[in-house]
């Protein structure tokens, strides 16, 4: 919870809803339907986003797309660099990932390291036919050769800025995405 000097809203609740709807449509279009699709949210905020995408797909396509939750803590490459021990949460994917089209869902794409860990975690669970990546915000500054297949909004940022996604399922208050200068 970094203290912020100045906050700017880059997406409000409506804009988030529209971005999710658009991503859902793109997923259906790219994969010619959603029969094989499995949505996997990366804990924590990827999980409600995945559920929202699934809800849209259910409306649009009339298909209940399964949703899983992926905890990538044990696959992180920065475990020894942190001051606190990250809490290990549970991975919960009831559908076999093998031969599925897995859509990894996360809130913000930044260095790409979280996605790298998620890919490792995912392939330990089976052999998906394809893995695609959906993110609400892509803020640049990749450190690994990773790109998103579906992006809600591209936001140019500097490294000393913080992008904060607030979702009503997890956070108190309304949906919004903020950008702020870190004072640290």
């Amino acid at each position, binding site marked *: 919870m970094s203290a912020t000097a100045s906050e700017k809203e880059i997406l409000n609740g409506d804009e988030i809803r529209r971005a999710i709807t658009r991503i859902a449509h793109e997923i259906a279009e790219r994969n010619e339907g959603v029969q094989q699709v499995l949505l996997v949210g990366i804990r924590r905020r990827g999980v409600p986003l995945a559920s929202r995408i699934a809800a849209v797909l259910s409306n649009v396509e009339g298909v209940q797309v399964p949703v899983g939750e992926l905890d990538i803590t*044990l696959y992180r490459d920065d*475990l020894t660099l942190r*001051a606190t*021990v990250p*809490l*290990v949460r549970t991975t919960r994917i009831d559908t076999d990932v093998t031969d599925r089209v897995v859509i990894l869902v996360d809130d913000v794409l930044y260095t790409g390291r979280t996605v790298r860990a998620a890919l490792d975690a995912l392939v*330990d*669970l089976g052999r998906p036919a394809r893995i695609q990546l959906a993110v609400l915000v892509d803020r640049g500054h990749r450190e690994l050769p990773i790109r998103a297949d579906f992006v809600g909004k591209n936001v140019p940022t500097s490294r000393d800025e913080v992008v904060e996604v607030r979702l009503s399922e997890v956070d108190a208050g309304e949906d919004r995405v903020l950008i702020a200068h870190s004072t640290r």
Partner: protein
Amino acid sequence: MTLPEPIRPTRRHVLDLDDFTRHEIETLLDTAVGMKEILSREIAQVPTLRGVSVVNMFYEDSTRTRISFELAAKALSANVVNFAARGSSVEKGESLLDTMRTLQALGADILVLRHSYAGTAHLLAQHFRGAIINAGDGSHAHPTQALLDLFTLRDKLGTLERRHIVIVGDILHSRVARSNLWGLTAMGAHVTLCAPPTLLGNEQFWLDTWPDLRIVYSLDAALQDADAVIVLRLQRERQEAGLLPSLREYAQFFALSQARLQAALTGMLVLHPGPLNEGVEIAPDVAVSAQSVIEEQVTNGVAVRMALLYHLALHLRQKGA
């Protein structure tokens, strides 16, 4: 934000549960939930502790505990070496500290120690640069067993707050009982001890450390309103040492029989640290009854040990970094 506070990795060793707060225990048990999911996978292994060396230093035979630690370390991709030595260091003519220093020089990061003398884990912790996990020292402590008991109980009962747990058997010589007393008390449970006086010792001595304990000699009385009972193993040597008139009489008055199970609350859980002496402290049909969670304890043991290894290894690494 409803996220629980992440724990600062300040814990170096796990020697007993006497220095654990409830928050720390809860965090470990939460971590173990995630670890248990990994164990259920087809590929039950994650890369987290690659390059970490764990040495199982067992001065007392315990295949179960050793295998549990070994599987836990391997599931986290740590290197595991087993060092087994029988008898005390003095009998071997090699000092325990000397052996420890050798293992340290060979690059051991975490020592898992099982020893028949109380206090040996504390001794090594004074001198070892890495982390010590006490896997049972004499009659003193067995913190990982207690943690897996807590995990199992919390899993089944939802919470331990104000739950009534009975520990029955050879409490005087039981490290499992002592570590569970710390853990259960920290978690807010009510504990009753039940044993014949020769296997319990002076009641006041227990109450001096754990003032809220209840101590009774009648197992039937103890089991009234119990949410769970932890049945301890009875070593046959106790009878030979004259602490019991006969195993038959012990079984009659202190074994968890089918009749006692029937008389207890429906759904009262049955735990046992193993290995079982069926027909002595527990009836065979009780051990495999629907209320028995003895097998689950074994699985949970691996998950809990993974959680501990994860926390200790990260702390070591972070200090080294």
